[in-house]
């Protein structure tokens, strides 16, 4: 899996790392059940802090895209639906960013999302 981050970008590095995994899962270059590199290794590869990588992994876990197992590292959730889930999360994040640009508050956005569940 290819990780590319831009330290000059305004997007936090942890989010950029999470986006790499999401993108790889969505376009099929990472498969469900695949093991991600250990946080320490990835941090060394990219020349970033271990905690930055861990923040990215933590975000992916909250999104239900990876499992963090003690001693076994980070694992993309097994199951055929993982790529679709990754695409869904990406679209949600795009929608949230768009809402902020439109000047919506976070509460308003959540309310909007709840209404669309209708």
């Amino acid at each position, binding site marked *: *899996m*290819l*990780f*590319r*981050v*831009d*330290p*000059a970008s305004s997007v936090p590095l942890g989010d950029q790392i999470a986006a790499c995994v999401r993108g790889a899962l969505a376009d099929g*270059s990472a498969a469900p059940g*695949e*093991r*991600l*590199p250990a946080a320490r*290794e*990835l941090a*060394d*590869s*990219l*020349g*970033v802090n271990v905690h930055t990588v861990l923040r990215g992994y933590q975000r992916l876990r909250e999104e239900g895209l990876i499992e963090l197992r003690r001693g076994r590292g980070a694992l993309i959730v097994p199951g055929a639906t993982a790529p679709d889930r990754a695409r869904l999360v990406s679209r949600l994040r795009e929608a949230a960013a768009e809402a902020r640009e439109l000047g919506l508050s976070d509460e308003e956005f959540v309310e909007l999302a709840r209404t669309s569940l209708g």
Partner: protein
Amino acid sequence: MNRATPRLRALAALPFVLALAVHLLLFARWRDELPAELATHYSLGDGGEADGWTGRAGYVLISTALIAGLAAAWTALVRRRALWGAWATAGFTGGLLVQLLRNNLVDEFEVQVSEPAVDLAVAGTAAVAAALAGWALTSLVPEEEPAVRSGAPDGPRLALGASEVAGWSRSTGSRALTVLAALALAAAPVVLLVLSWPDALFGLLGLVIGVPGLALARVRVTVDRHGLTVRSGVFPKPRVRIPLDEIAGADARDVHALAEFGGWGYRVRAHRTGVVLRSGEALVVRRDGGREFAVTVPDAETAAALLNTLAERHGKV
């Protein structure tokens, strides 16, 4: 790319042919004086008395197979500057075998005795003499072509922004190798318990196959600012690393485990090294000096593109 010329291979095989010929000739010449059972193993404790015997036919077979095996290995892997090593190996092996025959030249009811120091001294002298001959013969082989370092690595590229940092990491494995290694490991204690000494030593073979097998059954391949790194998914060491400034180019292509590498696992051939877990897609790196390093891994195209890009960027700094 460097290739061992037929001449170099012939010169590497020659000392083994000589050793085999001398050994068999002496065996034939001393035929009437040699016992039906040759003493082939000596105890270290009791003044070097013989404690292991082999029949004549068996002895000829085993010694010939030993020389042939060494010859095959040296012929396959020889490099110009290591030619003397082939000669030294042949000299040492030949010397030991001839000493073994000489120690057997005793009257029927005497005990065969070996003096390890004398045997080793004779074999060592033979090895040194042979090594000198081999070293002298090296001049008959033309120099290997000097390494051609092209300005920039060739192969695919990845568009990377000026401030962007990138790394690629992938774990890959072989289920067949995992199963085989586990079986070998499981067999080791069984053999140790069931067979009597010293046959039980074969049990160690299980460990010798099982431990490296298991270490290689799952590997992680990383391409980043340090270069290409392949390490075991089980143990943190050993690992193989090719730094960016030794990389002349990277490519993704299909490799054939048996035809190109003669098997699976960590393979060393005359001009290429590889971590080969299956036939198929592999990341192939050309090093300065023309040697290739291959590792079978999915999505090798991306890895090769990133490696070329990083190597090029590294060269500019």
